[in-house]
């Protein structure tokens, strides 16, 4: 039984890793070698593809742009979602259920629907091609999810803690920041993970709302496809570099993943 399990999980992991390995393998090959024939590992190991990216500002700025709006998005999401989640977990108020459901429906809106109106809206307020525009647009998906996750974690904290703190004379702000936030720190970690995840992987809106100054790396990658065919090596190297931030993030939250993926609800 356990042996079968081990074989099962190892073969599934192999299925997950094999395509990624192929990308890494290809990023260390020259284009001649890639198109010349199939080999399981690079015969002539080369860093040339990575050199192209690290020496050209129009390439590496794409990474800075992406990271910039992803961080901005996570910060905005946390700042607005924390008080709202607290309100949903502690109070009844007029329209609370409707508001909560309405927030979640935004997660169901196909991004393709919003392309044109987003473009016009952000152009008309002068935010087109800025990082903040992409961060705000991504809030459409990250904020509802963040409120939902945080509400789950906060509801697990007993009300008595709030009440005791107020009786002890703590102001709301002091209590919230000094006492309450540390109690739900794993929830905050998970929220950051999810906002990062959905903002980092999204391309459609990010590409529509930017042209030069805030263009994400994922959109810059398309220019490896030129008139003379595809520059496979550089494409693969750029792809490998987009995986690294994800690996770092998952490494930091690995101990909270089990609880976090249940959105604090089990």
């Amino acid at each position, binding site marked *: 039984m356990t042996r079968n399990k081990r074989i099962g*999980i190892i073969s*599934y*992991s192999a299925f*997950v890793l*094999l*395509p990624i390995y*192929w*990308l890494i393998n*290809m990023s260390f090959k020259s284009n001649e070698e890639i198109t010349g024939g*199939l080999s399981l590992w690079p015969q002539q190991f080369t860093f040339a593809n990575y050199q192209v990216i690290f020496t050209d500002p129009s390439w590496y700025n794409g990474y800075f742009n992406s990271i910039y709006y992803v961080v901005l998005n996570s910060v905005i999401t946390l700042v*607005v*979602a924390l*008080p*709202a989640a*607290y*309100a949903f977990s*502690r*109070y*009844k*108020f007029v329209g609370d259920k409707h*508001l909560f459901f309405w*927030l979640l*429906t*935004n997660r*169901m809106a*196909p991004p*393709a*629907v*919003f*392309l*044109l*109106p*987003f473009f016009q809206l952000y152009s008309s307020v002068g935010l087109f091609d800025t990082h903040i525009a992409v961060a*705000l647009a991504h809030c*459409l998906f990250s*904020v*509802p999810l963040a409120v939902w996750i945080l509400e789950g974690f906060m509801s697990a904290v007993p009300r008595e803690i709030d009440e005791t703190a107020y009786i002890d004379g703590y102001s709301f702000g002091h209590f919230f920041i000094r006492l309450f936030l540390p109690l739900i720190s794993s929830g905050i970690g998970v929220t950051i993970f999810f906002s990062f*995840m959905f903002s*980092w*992987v999204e*391309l*459609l809106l990010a590409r529509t709302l930017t042209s030069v100054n805030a263009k994400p790396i*994922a959109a810059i*990658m398309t220019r490896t496809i030129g008139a003379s065919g595809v520059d496979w090596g550089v*494409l*693969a190297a750029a*792809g490998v570099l*987009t*995986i690294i931030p*994800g690996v770092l*993030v*998952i490494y930091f939250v*690995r101990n909270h*993943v*089990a*609880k976090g*993926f*249940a*959105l604090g609800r*089990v």
Partner: protein
Amino acid sequence: MNKVQNNKAWLLVLPVFLLVAFSAIIPLMTVVNYSVQDIFDQNNAYFVGLEWYQEVMSVPRLQDSLARQFFYSGTVLLIEVPLGICVALMMPTRGWTASLSLIVLALPLLIPWNVVGTIWQIFARSDIGLLGYVINGIGIDYNYTNNSVDAWFTVLLMDVWHWTSLIALLCYSGLRAIPDAYYQAARIDRASSWAIFRYIQLPKLQGVLIIGVLLRFMDSFMIYTEPFVLTGGGPGNSTTFLSQTLTKMAIGQFDIGPAAAFSIIYFLIVLLVSWLFFTTITHLDKDKVKEQSHD
């Protein structure tokens, strides 16, 4: 938990409300606005009522991609949910192997979607890709760029690779929350491993599975980037899904009125299916509880 009635809580919710309203209500109203007008240029727009809605419902291209979309989402759910549960059951529960398998499984979820398309483009090509090369090597003629069956197979395999992890991780966290006492009781009763799965694990997974199925339905129904990069919707239109048809219509041909009407229908379908699924599941649950209390 008993909550206190307090309308001042609105002050705490206000920032979220304003932010999401800016990003959601204004654009949505713009779309609604477009969908009931015929726009020639900035100064010439005519109110046409529901004309566009009637028109888009009879466009064969849209009907085809809608049917494809339902088939795709259905297939994806049928494969990923059982597979995800199996993977979650096989995952090690403690030690460094547990951390390692978590990281490996979460990996595909954190790769930008167009890079996912690129990875599979490189992996499945018959000339430079391992998968394509191996399939052709064992004597099966495989080329996803000009055979629509192969293209479908590749797109589905890509989605399974990309998203089964989400179901698996959700179930994994659900399984970790089952108290050991349940398993001890099962051992005393000499329950078979199937009985443990059917009567202990599966019921406890219900909550996370609802979240998983909803997320997977919504995201697979809105899929755009990955097949766009992998197959470009081809060969022909065989892997052109709804989002792609819509974007072509709105930005490629600038048919804003019909595209907007179609957007609204699209959004409503996602909402309706999600709502139906959610209410059916929760009602079934209530009925079950009622039956048990009658016994």
